[in-house]
């Protein structure tokens, strides 16, 4: 009889020797990079809340018009200036158009502009920044002088001139906003690359025959992904704001197309009597911006390769 009462049967002391399989057993399964990022992202409650909020907003933007069953351009003078109700969830505007449907359509435009501008900004910014940082010398000099030149151009004047020349279209707006936005990304990526290129693994990659392009794509990009993802999530709301501002001052989307900025601009005129016309577009801008910021914050922690354990 053993101390705790179990009976030791006859053969438990038989020698079995080294167990080849379990002596080399790996403790934990290999997590993929993204699985690990997701695991750490989930631990951040606020970030998950932000992600949930964003998903809800996007679902609303795409399913909303179908749910409400209204057309965003349909004018019905008999239901002008209605307060929010069961029939018109966000009320109606002064032409009798359903605000909820308009907010959904406007949101699509706003988020599309935010994403497009960010993509353009990241692609240009990363490519130039990586080249400047990695190549150094005259390439670096040329790119950085360009960065200084573009960075010092007055943004608003450029946008005004461009929209005058190109007309007020979605493309013109994206082009104008992207034209000067990549400067910060370039600077940031260059700084990061300058630091990363001194890392042994970059030199090791060179010693094993990787060319510049491969080093950028395989070694530098994944290691700068953390800051790039954060930049993405932080700049989408920035561009949404930018678009809202331009539409607000009358340089953005042209009616009957609409965006949150255009809706807010329109609603501002009616603020005294129809506050809901300003309230709902603004609320959506605030919620979207908030959710992107929360996600960005969570991602910056989750993506940092140095924090992986």
């Amino acid at each position: 009889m053993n101390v705790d009462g179990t009976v030791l049967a006859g053969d438990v002391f038989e020698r079995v020797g080294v167990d080849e399989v379990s002596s080399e057993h790996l403790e934990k399964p290999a997590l993929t990079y993204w699985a690990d990022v997701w695991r750490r992202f989930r631990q951040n409650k606020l970030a998950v809340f932000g992600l949930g909020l964003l998903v809800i907003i996007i679902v609303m933007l795409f399913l909303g018009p179908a749910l409400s069953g209204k057309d965003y351009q349909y004018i019905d003078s008999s239901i002008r200036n209605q307060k929010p109700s069961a029939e018109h969830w966000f009320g109606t505007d002064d032409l009798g158009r359903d605000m909820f449907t308009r907010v959904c359509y406007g949101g699509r435009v706003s988020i599309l502009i935010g994403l497009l501008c960010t993509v353009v900004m990241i692609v240009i910014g990363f490519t130039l920044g990586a080249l400047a940082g990695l190549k150094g010398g005259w390439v670096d000099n040329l790119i950085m002088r360009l960065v200084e030149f573009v960075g010092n151009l007055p943004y608003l004047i450029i946008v005004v001139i461009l929209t005058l020349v190109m007309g007020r279209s979605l493309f013109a707006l994206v082009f104008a906003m992207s034209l000067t936005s990549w400067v910060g990304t370039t600077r940031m990526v260059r700084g990061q690359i300058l630091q990363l290129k001194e890392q042994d693994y970059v030199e090791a990659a060179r010693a094993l025959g990787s060319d510049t392009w491969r080093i950028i794509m395989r070694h530098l990009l994944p290691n700068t992904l953390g800051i790039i993802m954060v930049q993405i999530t932080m700049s989408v709301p920035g561009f949404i704001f930018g678009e809202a501002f331009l539409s607000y001052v009358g340089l953005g989307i042209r009616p009957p197309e609409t965006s949150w900025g255009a809706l807010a601009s329109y609603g501002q005129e009616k603020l005294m009597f129809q506050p809901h016309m300003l309230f709902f577009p603004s609320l959506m801008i605030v919620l979207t911006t908030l959710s992107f910021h929360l996600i960005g914050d969570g991602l910056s922690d989750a993506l940092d390769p140095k924090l992986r354990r």
Partner: protein
Amino acid sequence: MRNGQMLNTKDLFVSFKTYAGIVQAVRGVSFELEKGETLALVGESGCGKTVTAKALMGLLPNEQVEIGGEVGFHGENLLEYGEDEMTKIRGKHISMIFQDPMTALNPTMRIGDQIAESIIIHEQKTHAEARAEALEMLELVKIANAKERMNQYPFEMSGGMRQRVMIALALACNPEILIADEPTTALDVTIQAEILELIMQLQRERDMGVILITHDMGVVASISERIHVMYAGKIVEEGSVREVFYGPKHPYTFALMKSVPELSSTKQEPLYSIVGTPPDLINPPQGCPFAPRCEFAMKICKLEPPAGVSCGETQRSYCWLHHPDADITGVPEVLQGRSEAHAR
């Protein structure tokens, strides 16, 4: 023994332009490497060992650096190659293992993909084929559970294992020459022996030429055949390991050997060390660079650099003591008696 020269470095010069002035890091280094041979470049920190290796591989930055001399490889001078041509040489023909396995692997890539990478670059294989080869390489460097390890990231491994991965990485494309830059410095002693054994075994199997860069005499003794002792950017003595270890002919090599602690020694005395520090390479001394720290220095040593003197089958030493007129009173016996060699 001499079964075909692979790499032939002649009079290699490397200088860096810095704010303080021009640093002459390597000043006329020549050596030859044969198939299946291990050549050790030995010397203290900052003597130009690593710079020599990087110059061979074309890894030095183009700007602020001047390289002279010749690096002959299959009858061509690698120093004349452009970046694109060097990219094809690196990894495929000449490969390199780095000192610190902790930082020489990309933290965001699975090790299987990192090994597959160079196979994809040089052998135009598909990803799947390359991964299969990478798995074989991992097994070759004796990593247990290679299949699972393929999908792991460097941070999930120990230093010794990462160095094995580095070796697998360097040897994936079956290079003719492997440059090992202090491959065991960052590892603890028991792992060091395993890694050296692994490098030796793979070298024998593949008949590679290995250039071993180290400051560890023990490592040199255990795996190399020939040794080049570097000091202040110059080679001061060269020869087979046997010759140099048992009969160092240069006072610097002699002092180096003397400063290695002996396990069998029972004497109660402080460990020998060389006085002073290596010279500043911005203004390297005119004569023998070791002269200021050399116990046996003569006037001539500070005026003119000594020529190489053959003093054995393959041994050469660059020292004025070998001159027939040299004052050898008080000079240890090993270093003496080279005067006849000089005459030879």
